């Protein structure tokens, strides 16, 4: 797996480095350490940082390279990821942002809009990936699970996956049958509800790959329920779709990926 580690030497970047070391325990990885600077004056500091990071990674990763780019961080990361044809971008995320940064959008938020490959955002503490919460809206084709299988099949070895669908619907008027608004996964599957069909499809894919899994449905606001499930289930990583959309979709649809990345307190893997 070719991993692009975007680092700036800060505390949240350290978590990303630790995350990469954890991944290297079980997977064969080649890594490129990328630092993006704003002006030439930062070159020396950046070079020192990259060589320190590379030295640390070389204890667990066979092939480590370094890259220095200058310009806008998000744009340069995306350019490197596209040109280098990486399988995964790995970055940390700052816990708190200034008001201006929140208005303008963080580097991570800008990355989410144009991902050429999956993005793993390391948060809190690095941990081996054993339990995965896969949050499937069911709305986009191909399904999120299929996209994950296609882009990072190695990640599905020796893990347990919980496929979660959040139903945030309410009844538009009284008098409608509303049992599905309170139903569990099994009931929705029995009722052949769209949500049940999506979960069953995911179950078939995972059964075919012999990955242990379970299916869950929660009812409430999408972002809140995903965050609550991630905390309550103590998952090692939360997998979501990038939901970039094209044309009208990008303009009209809410960017839930961005909100989930902000709310969830553990590593998030965003799959385009």
């Amino acid at each position, binding site marked *: 797996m070719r991993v692009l580690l975007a680092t700036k030497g800060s505390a949240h970047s350290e978590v990303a480095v630790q995350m990469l070391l954890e991944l290297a325990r079980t997977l064969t990885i080649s890594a490129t350490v990328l630092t993006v600077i704003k002006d030439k004056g930062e070159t020396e500091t950046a070079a020192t940082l990259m060589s320190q990071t590379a030295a640390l990674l070389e204890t667990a990763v066979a092939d480590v390279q370094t890259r220095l780019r200058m310009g806008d961080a998000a744009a340069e990361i995306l350019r490197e990821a596209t040109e280098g044809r990486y399988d995964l971008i790995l970055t940390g995320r700052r816990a708190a942002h200034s008001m201006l940064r929140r208005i303008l959008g963080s580097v991570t938020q800008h990355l989410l809009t144009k991902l050429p490959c999956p993005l793993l955002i390391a948060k809190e503490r690095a941990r081996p990936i054993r339990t995965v919460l896969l949050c499937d809206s069911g709305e986009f084709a191909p399904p999120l699970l299929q996209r994950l299988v296609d882009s990072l099949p190695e990640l599905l070895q020796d893990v347990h996956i919980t496929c979660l669908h959040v139903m945030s619907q309410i009844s538009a008027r009284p008098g*409608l049958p509303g049992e599905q608004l309170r139903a569990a996964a099994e009931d929705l599957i029995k009722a052949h509800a769209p949500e049940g069909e999506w979960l069953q499809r995911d179950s078939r894919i995972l059964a075919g790959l012999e990955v242990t899994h379970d299916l869950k449905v929660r009812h409430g606001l999408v972002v809140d329920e995903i965050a609550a499930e991630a905390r309550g289930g103590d998952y090692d990583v939360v997998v979501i779709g990038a939901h970039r959309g094209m044309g009208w979709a990008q303009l009209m649809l809410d960017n839930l990926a961005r909100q989930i990345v902000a709310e969830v307190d553990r590593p998030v893997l965003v799959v385009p």
Partner: protein
Amino acid sequence: MQRRFALQPLWAQFIKQARRVNWRKVALFIVSLLLFILAIALMKEGAQALTPLVRDRFAINNAANSLGFGWFFAYVIMSGSPVAAAALTFFDAGALDRVAAFTMITGSRLGASFIVLFIGFIYVLRGRNRATSLSMGLLSFTVTGTLHFFVLLLGGLFLRTGALDNVRLGSGGLLTAFTDVVLDPVVALFVRFLPNWALFLAGLGVIMVSFSLFDKCLPEMALKESQVGRVSRLVYRPLVMFSLGGLVTLVSMSVSVSLSILVPLSARGFVRRENVIPYIMGANVTTFIDTLFAAVLLNNPAAFTIVLAQMVSVTIVSLLVQVTIFRPYERAMLAFVGWVTARNRNMALFMVGIFVIPALLLLL
């Protein structure tokens, strides 16, 4: 020769298009519009006679009790728009001042929000699930109520400072000519046979018939799940749903009708929580379009300013909420709805509250 052949396809196309138009609905719309204009004229005539009743008997003489009056009035007739129109005619007749008319219109919105809730309540009494039956009505009521709390403050400020006084619209020559030629004789007929106070009630009745006919003009949405099901399941940006709610209600002129239009968007009649709140906010802006038209018909620019202050205030408050505190607001509204529907006792407390509050306001 060639020109004659070119015209025929155009004419044939015109006939084809004309056949597609539902002329019955067009006729209903025209009748509904005429009745609305007639209703405003009757209410304007009759409001003067009711001024002593409103000011002295009901003691509706300040912002608080006119808010309660509009609220209760809307409960009684199960509709907000006629009450809003009544507020303008009372203002036009001098029974209410600007701020009292403004708060009476606000009260009409709160009373109107009760309608969807009331229908849900009936289903609960018949044994249906509380959350399923009441969620939409509760959300509509709660969002409207919380918004209008701030609308009262902002709109009151606009009216007191006269910030919107320069934005005025009168009825214009064409409309005046139409009412002079067509409607005045009809109104004169009513005046001959009814006492002045009854003219107001007659106008109220006619306006309700007008709205009822207008509802029949609305296109029937019979979309299948497969056609727009995916669209109805997606989560849209709040501003998009706000605009959609405003646009749909610009046509329907009723928040409850706009909410019911959401039903056929999914074969199961479900809508996303995330989409509903901004939709209700948008609906609360353009639901005043008919009231704005009533102000124009009254040919009272100050009445126009009152309605404009409502619409501008709702828009500003809604947009501010969406831009600044939307997620906490959304959670708070949904948590409140969850609390009300959690137990019968909570629901009873809420229902008592929405009757006690306007009653207390009336006594102020």
